[in-house]
């Protein structure tokens, strides 16, 4: 029976997560930030699937489904916010939105 070492799956998830983090931290365009966030969420979903595969059980997949739902809701709200922001400030630069400074 062919098999993949578990760490390879997790390493892939880790790399994707780290890349997503880099994206969130570097990009100033809020759409890119949101996209990078999706990458990170997706990476964590991947980790769950790997775990599901490890235990050969469906629980991990269900968790992935939950994450998927969460991502959908989050994107919907996030995009709504982007639209609002663009309407008010005519920019997608998140640096502009710094009124909450202490």
């Amino acid at each position, binding site marked *: 029976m062919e098999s993949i070492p578990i760490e390879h799956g997790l390493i892939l998830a880790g790399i994707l997560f780290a890349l997503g*983090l880099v994206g*969130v*931290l570097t990009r100033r365009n809020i759409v890119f930030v949101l996209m990078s966030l999706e990458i990170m969420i997706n990476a964590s979903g991947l980790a769950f699937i790997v775990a599901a595969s490890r235990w050969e059980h469906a629980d991990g997949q269900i968790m992935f489904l939950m994450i998927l739902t969460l991502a959908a809701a989050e994107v919907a709200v996030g995009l709504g916010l982007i639209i609002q922001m663009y309407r008010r400030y005519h920019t997608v630069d*998140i640096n502009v939105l710094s009124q909450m400074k202490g």
Partner: protein
Amino acid sequence: MQDLIWLLPTYPLLGFLSLVLTSGNLPKKVVGAIGAGSIGLSFLTAAVIAYQFLGSGETHLVVEMWTWMAVGNFTPGFSFYLDGLAVVMMLIITGVGFLIHLYSAGFMLDDPSYSRFFAYMNLFVASMLVLVLADNLLLLYLGWEGVGLCSYLLIGFWYEKPENGYAARKAFITTRVGDTSMAIGLFLLFAELGTLNIQEMLHAAETQWAVGSGLAVAASLLLLGGAVGKSAQLPLQTWLPDAMAGPTPISALIHAATMVTAGVYLVARTHVLFELAPNVQLLLAWIGLITLLMAGFTAMTQHDIKRILAYSTISQIGYMFLGLGVGAWSASVFHLMTHAFFKALLFLAAGTVIHSLHHEHSIFKMGGKRKQLPIAFASFMIGSLALAAFPFTSGYFSKDEILIAALEMEGPGMILWLGGVLGAFLTGIYSFRLVFVVFFGESKGHHEEKEVAGLSMATPLIILMVFALFGGWIQIPVDAVFSHGEVHEEHHISNLMHAIMIVVPLLGIGVSYLFFMSKTFSVEKLMANPLATRLHGFWFSGWGMDALYSFLFVRPFVFLAQVNKNDLIDAVYALLVEITRVAHVMIARTQTGQLRWYALSIGGGVVLLITLGVVL
């Protein structure tokens, strides 16, 4: 009639209240009548009570008014206790007090605060009567503090001058130090003996404490603290000379005749305690001796007429302490009485002098005044003779008794006696220095002054002159009070000693005559010697005690208070606030509002947490 003893303090108290409540709106004649009249009433009552009491043959009499406070077994009452000692004291206070009030009615006539003056004076007499008539120490303490308060108010009577206020505060606070010691003594006595009633307490002490026991020593020492404060003895004597800032009748009444002798009264009243602590009693004698000598030397150097008298008062009270210390209780009380006569006389006469010379205090700016001020001169002459214990004046008898008692004492009696005799010598010098400089010699300045002496001022002087001269023949009825402490026996004093005691004061007067009257010796020449100058300066400053206390207590206290004006503890809380505020500013700075910065922080936090998780 004797049950009406409570009327004694009540009259002056009513006088005080009526003067206060009318707050100076009464005409001066009425004020004077109330002020002096209330004391006069008191004196009459006191005289009647004394007559009946002495006639009844009772040793003591207790009049209970009401229970002051009853807490557990602590039940001091507002009760008065009358015995021979109290009779003597109350007669002195009301009698001399009345004379001085009478004198004041004339003396203070020009003062705008006439009514306030008499109000305080009346309050003083009331307090003083409570002090001497109290049957328990707490009530005595009430009178004790009351007279201290009145002393404060009257020293600072002319409050516009800050130095008067300073002198008043100094007097109050210095005596308060002694009072606090006395209060602690009260706590101790109550804690150990379970009562503050003087007679019960003394009885309990006698039965419970052995002679020389630690508790007796502690209790008597603490009471002694109160006594030395009030009576201006070493080491708390510094306030009295400054207290002369008050009007002169005050000096006569409070700072010569009555209040300052309260310490003597206290010790005499609780003499049983002191007999239980012989060492403390000896200390009493030494305090008296040292004080009388120090004050005697200082008195020789002063040139303010009232300060001379003040130091002489300290010195005379030193004699009384010496007498108490050697166990001559009744002699001390006797001296207390005669001293009240002649010192009141001297002060009142000094008041006349000062008043007549437009508030001139320095004796060296006076001179040759015997013609201009005949009554004052006569008063001074008689007063000084009594003060210097000129034979057969009042002071002679009382001082003699004290010195004889010292001589008879075992142990250090001889030294005490010698010191006392030396003191008498000094007394002769300084008292007649005053007389010679002021009333003899060439007249200086103020040529045209006439003596200010209305009837109300002259009468008391004349009466006091009589008492100062002949007061020594009065028999004070205190034998019953001190009966078990004193052994009455014939004095085995050699004639030589008697002669010495008579001659030494005369010698003093003689020396004084040579220096200040005939100018056979010159003070200037003496002062040319640098040692003498330095000594003079040292004595003049009251042996540097003021400077010492200022250095030891006043300045450190003021310094500490100023340093800590803003309350160090508050700084601790302020620091806490400051730390919070700084932290707030620092953390607020991290709130940039930049989304990416927040994300970075979260990322960093995660890294940190994982690191911690791995490491730990």
